[in-house]
C-alpha cells in the first residue's frame, strides 16, 4: 500500500512539475515575445486620432468668436499609410493641442465671466468705473457692441460727477 501511495504521489508530482513547467515556459515565451500586432496597434491609434479630431472640431466650433487660438497640428506628410511611430506622434500632438485649446478656453471663460459681472457693476454704479470700456470681445460674444462709462455733458459732467454707461449700437 505505501508503495502504491508513493507511486501515486511521484506520478502527481511529475504531472504538477510538467504543468508548472508549461506555465513557466509560456510565461517566459510571452515575456520574450517582443513581436507586436502592429496592425491592431495602428487600428487602435487611428481610433484615438479620430476621437481627438472630433474633440478638436468641437472646441474649434465652441471657441468662435474668440481669436488667437492655435488649431493646427503638424502632419507627418502623405498621403500614405502611417506606421505606429508616426501615428503615436500624431496622437500625442493632437492630445497636446486639445489640452492647450481646452486650457486656453477655460482661462478665457473665467475672464469673460468676470467681465460680465463687471458690466453689471458698471451699469449699477458708473461713477465707480470711470472711463472703463468693456467690449463684446471681452465677454466672448461676436459683434462690436461695448459698454463705456463716460461723463454726461463732457467736462461739466466729469467735474460734477455725472457718470453714465454708454452702450454702443454695434458694428459701424
Amino acid at each position: 500500500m505505501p508503495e502504491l501511495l508513493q507511486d501515486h504521489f511521484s506520478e502527481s508530482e511529475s504531472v504538477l512539475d510538467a504543468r508548472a513547467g508549461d506555465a513557466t515556459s509560456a510565461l517566459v515565451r510571452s515575456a520574450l515575445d517582443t513581436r507586436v500586432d502592429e496592425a491592431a496597434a495602428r487600428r487602435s491609434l487611428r481610433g484615438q486620432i479620430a476621437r481627438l479630431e472630433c474633440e478638436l472640431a468641437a472646441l474649434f466650433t465652441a471657441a468662435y468668436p474668440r481669436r488667437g487660438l492655435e488649431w493646427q497640428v503638424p502632419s507627418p506628410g502623405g498621403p500614405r499609410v502611417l506606421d505606429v511611430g508616426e501615428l503615436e506622434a500624431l496622437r500625442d500632438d493632437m492630445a497636446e493641442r486639445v489640452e492647450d485649446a481646452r486650457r486656453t478656453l477655460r482661462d478665457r471663460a473665467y475672464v469673460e465671466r468676470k467681465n460680465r459681472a463687471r458690466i453689471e457693476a458698471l451699469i449699477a454704479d458708473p461713477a465707480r468705473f470711470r472711463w472703463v470700456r468693456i467690449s463684446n470681445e471681452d465677454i466672448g460674444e461676436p459683434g462690436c457692441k461695448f459698454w463705456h462709462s463716460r461723463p454726461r455733458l463732457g467736462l461739466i459732467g466729469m467735474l460734477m460727477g455725472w457718470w453714465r454707461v454708454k452702450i454702443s449700437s454695434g458694428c459701424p
Partner: protein
Amino acid sequence: MSTDEATVLQGRVAPALREEFPGLGFFYSIVPAQPGRTPSGVKKHLRYLSDRMHGRRALSLRREPIASAYRVFFRHIGLDPDEVRIPLEAAVVERLRAGGFKSEGLVEDAITIATVETGVAMRAFDAGRVQGGLGLRLAEPGERLGGKNGIELPDGTLVVADEQAPLGLIFGETAPDYAVSRQTERVAVCAVRVDGVPNISVEEAIWSCVSVLRAA
C-alpha cells in the same frame, strides 16, 4: 434604375489598403461630356448654392458627419486638413473668399455642385485615356505621376490608378495626361468613400455630378 441614372461602378481597392482602412471605397461613373463653358442653368445652380452657404455653416462644417469623416481620414493618411483642405472645406473657403462659387468650366462646376451638396470628395479624369478599371492602390517604388518626366511618387503613396499607371494622388494632384481638357469626350467622375461616409451619399454625389454634365 432608369436610363437617365448613371451606372456607378465600384473601383478596386488594393488589399493592403482595404486591410488598413476597411471603410475605404472608390466609386466612379463614365459619362460623355464636352468640357467647356458652363451653361447658364449650371451657373444659376452655383449661385443658389452660394446663397445657401454662409459663414455660420462654414464654421460648423467640421462637426458635420461627412466632413468630419474626411478630416479624420486626412489625419490617418498623414495630411493636415487645416493645410490640405478636404474638398468640401476647400470649396466653402473659396466661396467665402470669392463671395460665391465661381464658375470654372462645366466639369469643375459639376464637381463643385456635387461636393457642396453631398460633402463627398469627388475627382474627374479624362476617361478616354484610362486603361481598364479604376481604383485605389499604393504607389510602387520608383513610380512617377505623369510618365517618365513626372513627379516621383514616394513609395507607398496613396494613388488613384488605372491598370497601367497612377492617374493622380488620392486627394490632390492629377497627372497632366489624365486631366480633363477641351479634347476630352468622356469623363470619369470619381468619388472616394472613407469610413463614416454612407454609400448613399457617394451614389448621390456621382448622380448629382453626372446629371449636371448630362443636362449641359
